[in-house]
């Protein structure tokens, strides 16, 4: 959608060069450049809010020193920039016994997985890079790249902690993909489409039409989906792959400098993607909560971003509130609690949808 739009407007701007391959390449690369810029700015913002929210929850002040203003600033707004600069200046260490090509490949693979998922994320009524027919399915599929990247990171480091972290993350992400997928099946049955924009279009007309309020099963479906996405993005209470009290830092133990920063940024980018999927599938995406209120293409971006950021905030909130699970509790919860409830929900939603006609 956006690619076509840029292509058309470039053609109208320079009619003598209309239809050239150059324009096609530009209109494909421009959204990717914008996306990289967005992820970077969002990364700074979300890391800052993670530090500050965690500090406030723990009754601390958080960063105060960095940033503009008198006395070197009161809010420490430039703390994430300083953190980022520190990571990029640090020496990039590759252990001598590591498997060098795979060690280098792993961070790129996880970042590609996060970046390509953004292609199907609807940022607004008119802003989506490609509204594909299989949008939600595509995002779920791309999420599986992260599994391979984490196993590779853990294995190629040639470090027992890293290997344990990689194995745990693989087992965890593969397990929790199932309840997340089952939850999305219920959503897809209601909206009867896999396209992100069509799922949002189904929920037009105010808060009562949102899928989470569609029938009594959907709040449970949302809770299962949300907890599964926490597990898929390795957030506490599911951060077993990098639990520092047992595994030093899990699969990132041997990573330093820029490569570590890429892992860090990918985790936050993945948080945005799964929150955007939650917002799309359950909370009406870019639709306004009240029909006709602040309901224009420009405001749609505001609604989408604020819904997504609220869900990201809830993830941060949970991280600093809930203690970490044990491995057996994690598996028990997925296979013996979430999957049976999820299947029951799918059955219930199917019957509800048929009876409603």
């Amino acid at each position, binding site marked *: 959608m956006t690619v076509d739009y840029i292509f058309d407007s470039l053609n109208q701007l320079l009619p003598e060069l209309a239809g050239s*391959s150059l324009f*096609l*390449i530009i209109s494909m690369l421009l959204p990717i450049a914008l996306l990289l810029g967005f992820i970077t700015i969002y990364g700074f913002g979300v890391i800052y809010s993670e530090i500050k929210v965690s500090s406030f929850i723990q009754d601390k002040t958080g960063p105060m020193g960095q940033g503009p203003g008198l006395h070197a600033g009161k809010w420490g707004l430039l703390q994430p920039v300083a953190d980022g600069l520190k990571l990029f200046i640090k020496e990039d260490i590759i252990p001598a*016994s*590591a*498997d060098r*090509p*795979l060690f280098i*490949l792993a961070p790129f693979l996880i970042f590609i997985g996060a970046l390509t998922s953004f292609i199907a994320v609807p940022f607004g009524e008119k802003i989506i890079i490609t509204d*594909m*027919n*299989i949008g939600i*399915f*595509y995002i*779920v*599929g*791309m*999420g*599986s*790249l992260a*599994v*391979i990247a984490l*196993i*590779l990171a853990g*294995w*190629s480091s*040639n470090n*027992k902690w890293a*290997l344990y972290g990689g*194995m745990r993350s*693989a087992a965890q992400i*593969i397990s929790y*993909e199932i309840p997340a997928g089952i939850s999305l099946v219920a959503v897809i049955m209601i909206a009867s489409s*896999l*396209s992100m924009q069509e799922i949002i279009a189904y929920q037009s007309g105010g808060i009562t039409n949102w899928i989470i309020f569609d029938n009594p099963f959907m709040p449970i479906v949302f809770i299962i989906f949300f907890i599964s996405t926490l597990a898929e993005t390795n957030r506490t209470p599911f951060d077993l792959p990098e639990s520092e009290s047992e595994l030093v830092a899990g699969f990132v133990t041997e990573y330093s400098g820029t490569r570590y920063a890429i892992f860090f940024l990918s985790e936050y980018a993945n948080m945005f993607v799964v929150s955007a999927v939650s917002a799309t599938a359950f909370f009406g995406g870019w639709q306004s909560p009240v029909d006709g209120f602040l309901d224009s293409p420009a405001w749609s971006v505001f609604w989408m971003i604020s819904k997504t950021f609220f869900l990201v905030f809830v993830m941060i909130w949970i991280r600093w509130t809930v203690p970490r699970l044990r491995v057996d509790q994690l598996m028990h919860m997925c296979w013996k609690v979430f999957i049976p409830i999820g299947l029951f929900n799918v059955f219930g939603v199917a019957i509800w949808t048929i009876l409603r006609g």
Partner: protein
Amino acid sequence: MSELLFWFISAFTIISALIVVLNNQLLYSAIALLFTLFGVAGLYIYLWADFIAGVQLLVYIGGINVLIIFGIMLTNRISSVRLSQTNIQQGVGGVFALWVFIFIGLIISKTEWYQMTSAEPSSTVREIGTLLMTKYLLPFEAASVLLLGALIGAAILSREAN
């Protein structure tokens, strides 16, 4: 442009497929298989089979390739980085592969290919769903019963006898 991209994806698929069979490090082969499967998913998109491409991503990359990597890591000594595979009987295998290649090539060149008369379908998912629930319901159910049987069988086999 579209054709250029097609040739790029084809070359990408074939080169990574060659790495899968010619590399002598088992894990590198598994990683190259990941890129091969990615390339195949790209080719499916060129055939207007976007749903199949998504299934390729989810099932082959997210499931099967992860299982292969898991298998390699668990069946070998995982603490050692160097795992190797060797290609034995290269001559016989080459002759056999050449024969299969010629055979498939002949089939491709002799078949009367069905030409798509209508424009490209806007969404394949809906048609696939409708057909699976009407015309192909019996094969679909048979496949799901088979998979359920395999699932239960695997659970019973892997269970420790107590």
